């Protein structure tokens, strides 16, 4: 477990630092790239937890699709080089308070619920086949509900974007 703990520490530090830099940097493209680092770090943490399928999905969906679309949109509209934009809004103290509250509540509830539990090195390894069995049997109703929701969002976006 020692190696896992060391790597967890390194990855957690990278994720936390990138998250802070993402909101403090003054360049919008840099902010997006820091977000990529955060999401990639989370994917690596999933690998440490032996959740291979979730990690792969994280890379495919968040980095390969969502972040590429973000960057695509930013570069297509405005993407100035250098630190020319003032990106910190006037309400940042309020936002900081909300973020601190949210973080505090999450940390408290996690420690309260799982504080005494320990992961063992011989814990279960979730195979991709197990994941798909679960999704298409136990969780079939939420799965279908989510896909219908996504379809609705997709059609809604097309309707909003249409001019004629």
């Amino acid at each position, binding site marked *: 477990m020692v190696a896992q703990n060391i790597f967890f520490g390194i990855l957690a530090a990278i994720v936390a630092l990138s998250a802070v830099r993402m909101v403090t940097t003054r*360049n919008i*493209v*840099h902010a997006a*790239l820091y977000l*990529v680092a955060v999401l990639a770090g989370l994917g690596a943490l999933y690998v440490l937890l032996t959740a*291979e*399928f979730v990690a*792969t*999905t994280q*890379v*495919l969906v968040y*980095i*390969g*699709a969502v*972040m*590429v*679309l973000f*960057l*695509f949109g930013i*570069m*297509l509209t405005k*993407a100035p*080089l*250098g630190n020319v934009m003032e990106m910190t809004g006037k309400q940042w103290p309020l936002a900081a308070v909300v973020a601190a509250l949210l973080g505090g509540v999450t940390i408290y509830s996690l420690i309260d619920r799982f504080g005494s539990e320990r992961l063992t090195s011989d814990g279960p390894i979730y*195979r*991709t*086949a197990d994941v798909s069995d679960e999704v298409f049997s136990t969780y079939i109703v939420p799965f279908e509900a989510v896909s219908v929701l996504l379809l609705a969002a997709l059609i809604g976006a097309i309707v909003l974007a249409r001019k004629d």
Partner: protein
Amino acid sequence: MTTLLALPYWQETGIKLGLALAVIPTTSLILVYLFLFKMMAFMQSRLGPNDTGPYGTLQLIAEAIKFLQKEDIHPEQADRRVFRMAPVVVLASTFLLYVVLPAGPDAVVQNLDTGVFYAMAVSSLSVLGILMAGWASANKYALLGGLRAAGQLIAYELPLILAVMGVVIQAETLNLQGIVEAQATGEIFGFGAIGNPFILTQFIAFLIFMIAAQAELTQTPFDMPVAETELVGGFHIEYTGFRFLLFFMAEFGTAFAFAALASVMFLGGWWIPGFDVDDNILNVLGPGVMLAKILLVAFFIFWVRFTYPRLREDQLQKFAWKVLIPLSLANIVLTGIFKVVF
């Protein structure tokens, strides 16, 4: 499986990673020399490079040395950090692809459960590097090239993944070794003498996969992002020296990896059709069999590249969204029906 040699985990991993790192430049060397230099030259009634080494075989090594000697230049307005990181991101995506490519029953860096899915995921990372390069170069042509590349890669990733679905449904696994196994032991309507290479039963998927892969690799006729007549050079226009070399290596390394994926999924990978060979022998013969199949697939990729003119940007997008995606969805439905009925 009997192991002749048992090493600690970190030594084994180190050796595997070193091998994979050595394989990428070698594969791009093979592809560039065989196809880009020689085959293209013969198709155009030229000789191609023939001075450096026997039949010009050392030409590329000479050029690599030349690239390494060049001065490290940044455009003045460039965003230095992102500019430097971009080729590394693109090459990292190529490197991660090689992790799952099997060359024999046990000859694979890491036999991942989600093999195909993982390959699709990491191959989509290269778009990120291309966008970074296009933006950080502080050059309008580079930015345009980067945006074109991103639009094209997003559009063609969908048919690529959907085409793979047909194979996955038929093989009942995402694991690349499992897919090879399924082809080796498969039967077509009770006839199993040559197994079931999925190119026979999934021919539509194979065609879609090859077309989408051609677009993913930005090879002609899908090379709008690097169209030299409009964009001078596309996203890597400002890159010289070893950073350009990284892009170049990543391009052909990825071409090799996609050819390898196609030969694993549709041609049976390291398995020799019609022969029942022992696993240990296949571990030795496998890489050779794989290489033969990969070169065959790569031959088609480059044949198309040297033959067809470039598609216009709107034709290119229309082709992906209106032809390839509906076709691949129909293929999935058809495969599903066949899977249930037979």
